[in-house]
């Protein structure tokens, strides 16, 4: 069970609870979301997301949480954030692709932006 919290750019803190769940088709992760803005409890199964990718996603979300909590004091400069982001997407393309799908499914906009931008840079040849 992993309990974490991140606040997405859309505002509103999202608590999420991730647990492994056994189903007929094998292991799946489930995410319970409690979104303060919407006051809904959503149980979203994640069949497309494997554990490795989920670990990366959680790492990213934790980084976002850190960023937001310390962002009030303006502790982290923007270059560091960019450097961390650039580092985060330096994975092999299959993982990047899975990250895109995971971000799409989990509706994490900033991660989606980041990963899509990484792909765009690759396409442009940079």
């Amino acid at each position, binding site marked *: 069970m992993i309990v974490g919290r991140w606040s997405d750019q859309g505002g509103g803190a999202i608590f999420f609870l991730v647990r492994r769940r056994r189903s007929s088709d094998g292991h799946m992760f489930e995410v319970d979301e409690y979104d303060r803005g919407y006051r809904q409890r959503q149980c979203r199964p994640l069949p497309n997301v494997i554990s490795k990718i989920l670990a990366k996603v959680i790492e990213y979300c934790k980084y976002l949480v850190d960023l937001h909590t310390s962002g009030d004091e303006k502790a982290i400069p923007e270059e560091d954030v960019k450097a961390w982001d650039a580092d985060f997407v330096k994975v092999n393309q299959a993982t990047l*692709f899975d990250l895109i799908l995971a971000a799409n499914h989990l509706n994490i906009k900033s991660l*989606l932006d980041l990963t899509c931008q990484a792909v765009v840079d690759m396409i442009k*040849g940079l």
Partner: protein
Amino acid sequence: MGKSGYKSNYCGLEHDGCVIDTPQISKMHQRHPKADHVLQTKRCLTYTDDVIPTCSSLGQVAENALSDSFGGACESPRKKNKALEYHTRAHDQNPGVATLSNTAAGVFASVLQSTGSDIEYIRKAKIRGNYKCSKCGQPKKGHVCIDTPGKISSESRKDTIAESPRSRASESVQDDGLLPEKMVLGDAEELDKRYGGLTTAIVPHTPQPTSTSGLNAVENSQMFIGLSYTTTKKQEIWRSNASMAKELTPFSGLSSPPNCFFNEYHGSTGEAFNPLDRHGNTFEENNSGEGCQSIGIPDTCLLQIMARLPPTALLVAGHVCRQWQQCAERTWAAVREAHLILSVPTLGSTNKNEEIYRLTPSPRTYIPFILQKCSNLVHLMISVLSQLDDTFLKSIASSRPELSSLEINMIGNGINTMTGEGLEFLASTCKLLSCLKIEGCQVLSRCHIVNSEIKTMWLSGCQKLTNMVLESPLLMELSLDFVTGMNANLDHSTNCPDSLSDLTGQLAKKLQNVQKLHLASPLLDDRAVFNLLSARFRCLRMLSLIYGVGITDESAIVIASNCSDLELLDLSGSSITDKALVSISTAFSKSLRRLLVAVCPKISEVGLQEAVAHLPLLELLDCGRALGDGQMDNMSLPQKGQNHRVARLVTVDNGQGKIRKTKSCPIQTGKKPFRALVLQHSRLEKISFWGCSNLQSLVLDCPNLIDLNLNDCQNLRSDDLVLRCPYLRQIHALNCEQSIVQRARNQIKISIFSKDSQVPMLWHLDGSKRVHAPISSTFLDAKRKQKGTEGSSAAVCCPEN
């Protein structure tokens, strides 16, 4: 009977003549113990003489049978390959051509026996999955399945349908892949490298502040279920630049990363809304729960990616494969707004082949091509780095005649050689054109514009304009700027005050519906104003005649009498006196909200106080450098090392109102008496006293004041600064005494306190655009000398950027 060749070589059974019956065959084949081949029992594929199936139906049967029997439980890849090969061969053969042997069994036998099938061909053939979807058991063809299997499928289906609007919107947003935001593609960094600091010149030209990775919401997309190409309301901004020429190698430049996502040619996963997978879904493999390793990128994500590509890369990306082509088309169709950069392609790259380089089109050719592809393009903004001429303008007009808004900016060394002919062509071709903003019309001298839809027209830099006829009944906003790009060396013989007044006279005939009028020219004088105002403006709300040193009180009186209900009056840079202020304030006391009288050296504080007293609705007052004669002796602003000391008309928009900073005016030698000003107004929100260096004491009793500008009020003594403004949020206090800052702080609670100078920009009338408004001071001084104003030594200082 008696067709012994009909025996299956696998099971050895004989076959009767029978009718082809597809579903039963499949079932039977499944039940047969040796379920690894097609032919089985009596009810088998045979041919009778009268029923000769076409190859296609044979193929179909074979496909079904094969896919069924070979699909899930196939262990032997060899047999699977054979089945594939059969299928492909069957399809290769033309239906009806009698290359098919008489006996199906013979065909099968020959196929199935062949072991030397070309492996290459097999490998290229599509890997097939089950015929039926393993989640819901329905045949997969044309079937959309939620990608959660088992008993959760119903719940998840409910979840996805009953999902919060946010995720629904995001899903539908992502389905179209296009965020409702302006995307500034990362060419800004490249531009930075190439042109030094010129990206900053680009950035202010956009209506909202952008950063290199900026995503600014411009318009919210409508939420809608399902997808439709034409009803999307997303917007995108594209930027292309010369370095795109390097990437635009249309036939050889497909980089490998796109291919990596398509190692296996599968269709996309079963996303909920995905009508595009015509090609993929039939052969989809459902590996639910196993991760997405073998499934291609879904369209939603692909659209996200394509939305961030610059247009040249998008053109290339459309050539990758069918899915990419569809997504590219959708992306093109969703472009509503484009910001393109017209520049010369560089010959920079050293590892370019000559040949490939020749294939690279220049921006002048591919920009019209791109415009043709964007079938829904509505706004077009072009930043010109190289040269804009009539032919280019005509090509834009003809490739995108439904354009409704065109903006042309000049950056760097861009040259605009557009003439009236090009403009007329544009206006007549683009019948829906409603907004036209062009900078740098230096060559434009006469134009006759006939367009029934045009509402906004801003032409700047039109120094040679002498004749202008506008047949546009809907024109609401007209701005003619003769000032931008002028320098003292320009020959002004073609543009003298007479011509300007003629021009205004011509304009006046057609300007009945104009609501906002802006003319900026040093040649404005009373006569021009008279001519202008001979038009009967029915609903003029904003009038701005700036830089015109020839404007005197008489113009103000005429304005006061002719116009009613003015909301904004800007007579900066003119020679009006207190009398004009009095007449203005009496005439527009019920409507005037913004009064800008910067750099009017003849105004004194008496007039200001009168004006403020009589204008109850006043929200913004700009009287920089307007109190008496501005004294520059103590100026310590750094001078720019230019040939001409450029003064800038500086305006800062803070949302609601405008604060105009002044441009500098000639320095008066000798001391002038210090002035004191007491202003009391209940609605004033923004005041600017920029450059009023002889202002010594200031008492402001404006409870609604939000912004106060005291830059360069050097002689303002802190003891004499009284601010009774509880809501004051911003004070600009450059070059003031230090104690002023402290004192102001003590008096009010200030949240933003800015001591840096403002960027010298000029907001246009509706606050939506910033342009530089440099004007040569020497030219101004010459004009002033002609008019006989004081000012022997004209030392002009300029604010630093």
